[in-house]
């Protein structure tokens, strides 16, 4: 079958690879119908997550049709049209039973790597490096889905492939931040990053009752989408002082909840950006945390800051004093997909949550390297490239 593989730093390839097999009783094999780029893929592509092997199939945000079922699968059958959570979850460990699915104890077959990095192993993720299990990814004609009863969800007839696709990761990641970040009715929420996850966080904040949502980015086409589809106010950080604007918008208080949806390759203008770039390139810090710093400083006293963007390890010049003295709550998480996907599909079915506009570039799998180039360089207004294997 055709698949998109990581061939080295900033090199992708489309190769013929063997088809996946049922390896455990709880597996299904999916014929992929839609699979999309995610901002976190760029960290793999750029070599910031040094656990990629040449030949690894990438891709973790996808949906498709069940074509083969393991003998232990109870809830899925051949022909089901499903969307799949990007993180793999066993459904039976304490973390899964408590709906912290991305922290699954049993789904990462390489625990020694992340225990060394973070002190504990987290769950595995499809198509996201050997640190998170080494699962073959979804940018392929077929993909193996372990623990399918836990991580796959039948798409209602009224929800199109193009819409359901983003329940897999972008919208469910966003819901993780909105929910665990504690967004409540009447809140003002600021979201750093107007990519797929940031836009979904803005829209979902409004759905759960936020009175005002502000989205911060530098790309006009993404800010326009945030205004149009999420009803958000927007700030272009290249022309506007973000903290000053947020103070003015919030009566001097600052946002109640700040959601960071940018991650380890944050851009920032001025000396801070240069500092972070130099330190990251010299491997003196692994991640560039400009958006998190800004969120901590802008957040109202006693407010909540949630990191949704992917970070790998170490950051420098973190405003811990502001965090402590302002009484902030700082949380982060990878996506707890099965906790949120069922509700997202309901919202999608009722047209309360639309996602199709994120798919600015739809193309066959064979053109994936070009899709990633457009996505990485933000060319031609690309928000997400979606592949149709």
């Amino acid at each position, binding site marked *: *079958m055709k*698949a998109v*593989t990581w*061939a*080295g730093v900033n090199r992708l*390839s489309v*190769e013929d*690879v*063997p*088809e*996946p*097999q049922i*390896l*455990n*009783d*709880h597996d299904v094999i999916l014929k992929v119908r839609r699979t999309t780029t995610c901002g976190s893929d760029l960290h793999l592509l750029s070599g910031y997550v*040094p*656990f*990629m*092997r*040449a*030949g*690894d*199939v990438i891709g973790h945000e996808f949906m498709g049709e069940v074509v083969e079922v393991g003998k*232990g699968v109870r809830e899925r059958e051949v022909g089901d049209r499903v969307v799949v959570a990007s993180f793999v979850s*066993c*459904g*039976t*460990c*304490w973390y899964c*039973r408590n709906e912290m699915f991305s922290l699954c*104890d*049993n*789904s990462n*077959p*390489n*625990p*020694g*790597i992340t*225990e*060394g*990095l*973070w*002190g*504990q*192993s987290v769950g595995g993720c499809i198509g996201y490096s*050997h640190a998170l*299990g*080494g*699962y*073959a990814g979804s940018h*392929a004609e077929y993909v*193996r889905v*372990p*623990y399918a009863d836990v991580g796959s969800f039948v798409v209602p007839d009224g929800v199109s492939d193009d819409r359901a696709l983003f329940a897999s990761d972008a919208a469910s990641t966003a819901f993780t931040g909105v929910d665990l970040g504690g967004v409540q009715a009447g809140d003002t929420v600021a979201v750093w990053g107007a990519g797929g996850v940031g836009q979904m966080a803005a829209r979902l904040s409004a759905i759960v009752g936020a009175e005002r949502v502000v989205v911060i980015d530098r790309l006009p086409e993404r800010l326009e989408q945030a205004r149009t589809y999420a009803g958000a106010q927007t700030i272009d950080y290249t022309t506007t002082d973000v903290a000053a604007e947020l103070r003015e918008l919030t009566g001097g208080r600052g946002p109640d909840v700040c959601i960071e949806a940018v991650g380890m390759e944050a851009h920032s203008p001025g000396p801070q950006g240069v500092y972070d770039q130099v330190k990251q390139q010299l491997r003196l810090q692994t991640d560039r945390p400009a958006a998190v710093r800004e969120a901590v400083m802008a957040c109202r006293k006693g407010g909540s800051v949630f990191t949704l963007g992917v970070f790998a*390890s*170490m950051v420098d010049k973190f405003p811990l004093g502001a965090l402590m003295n302002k009484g902030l709550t700082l949380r982060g998480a990878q996506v707890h997909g099965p906790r949120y996907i069922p509700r997202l599909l309901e919202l999608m079915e009722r047209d309360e949550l639309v996602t199709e506009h994120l798919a600015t570039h739809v193309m066959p799998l064979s053109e994936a390297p070009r899709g990633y180039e457009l996505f990485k360089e933000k060319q031609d207004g690309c928000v997400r490239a979606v592949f149709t294997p």
Partner: protein
Amino acid sequence: MANPLLSRAADVGGALLGRLQDLRLPGVGTASAKDDPARAARRWRVVTVLLPADRVDPGDLPAPLAALGDRIEVRVTPAPADKGTEVAARYRTAPSEEDIGRLRAALRASKQLLETGEVLRMDPRPHGERAQTPAGRLLDGVVANAKKEGVL
């Protein structure tokens, strides 16, 4: 003919995770780097399984732990609150690093068997051309040892 540089890279990768156990760097997970080696080797290695204690029989251990036979002692105790049952194991006599790695892997596999009924299998898996570079072979070595290393 095997490239000795590439073989060496895989060996180094395999040893790398183990060497991390000896470092004391901020943010690097270590099993027991501050302990003297004898104490570190004697520590109980513990996993918590989400089952009541009466469902975890020390006399009828899952196969990966049972395979270590009388070389290990096993302790089963209820975990606090709703957390399940703690399964701890250690060698009766001074183990080698390889022994400890085998015990880590056995505990992890046993937890999976008790909680999910299966041990997750990963191979064969689809992949493209595996370029035989030193960095790639280094990662191969890391992955090959990832079940046997870590903080457990």
